[in-house]
């Protein structure tokens, strides 16, 4: 079993990365690997609970996030400093994500076999 970390670094709707990362993440869950996901930088905006994507004819990313647990993806992390820099609180997120410091993120990434960065 390999340790694979998905890193989401982009805001949810300006580019396709958030959606395509989520698609890849759900596909990965079928392969019986040790999957983790980290939301860092502007990627933390993907986690915001109150998204109104309908106005731009998009699917709501945050509405799909609770499905991760059903796919046995439970190692969900968020860069703590990225939240505070954007004045976001854990309570505003659509799912439970464990806040990590830069040191903890460094340890997390060093512990992986593969990192897929979006």
């Amino acid at each position: 079993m390999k340790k694979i970390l998905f890193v989401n670094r982009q805001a949810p709707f300006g580019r396709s990365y958030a959606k395509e990362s989520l698609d890849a993440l759900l596909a990965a869950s079928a392969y019986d690997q040790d999957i983790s996901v980290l939301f860092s930088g502007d990627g933390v905006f993907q986690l915001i609970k109150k998204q109104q994507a309908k106005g731009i004819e998009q699917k709501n990313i945050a509405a799909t996030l609770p499905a991760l647990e059903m796919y046995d993806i439970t190692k969900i992390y968020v860069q703590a400093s990225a939240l505070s820099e954007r004045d976001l609180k854990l309570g505003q997120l659509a799912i439970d994500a464990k806040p990590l410091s830069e040191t903890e993120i460094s340890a997390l990434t060093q512990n992986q076999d593969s990192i897929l960065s979006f």
Partner: protein
Amino acid sequence: MIFSLAVYAAPYSQEGSATALRFAESALKQGHQLYRVFFYADGVHNSSHLHTPPQDENNLPKRWKALADNHEVDLVVCIAASLRRGILNSEEAARYEKPSHNCEAPFNISGLGQMIDACVNSDRVITFA
């Protein structure tokens, strides 16, 4: 070392596409193995065989093809990402009743599972966005 590459960058728009190609060529030259190149997001545009760059510019699709032909590199294009961006091989064009196709060997259209399989079977996966 066994490498795989994940390419999300479109050719001629982002440098990531050309950098991925040079990385692949260099890695093979140095004796490393390339297990797979997986084209995802806008990276699927690298697989169109209709690219017609000016003659004095880098012909990226031609070099990807040469890489695959000379080193048997597995070039896989994500089906979900490619269909919505108008990259179709003859089978998909027939399935969706489209008048033409623009993707053919050595590029293979397949599923996202191939990207995860690349992670499982490679020492390093490098993303080019």
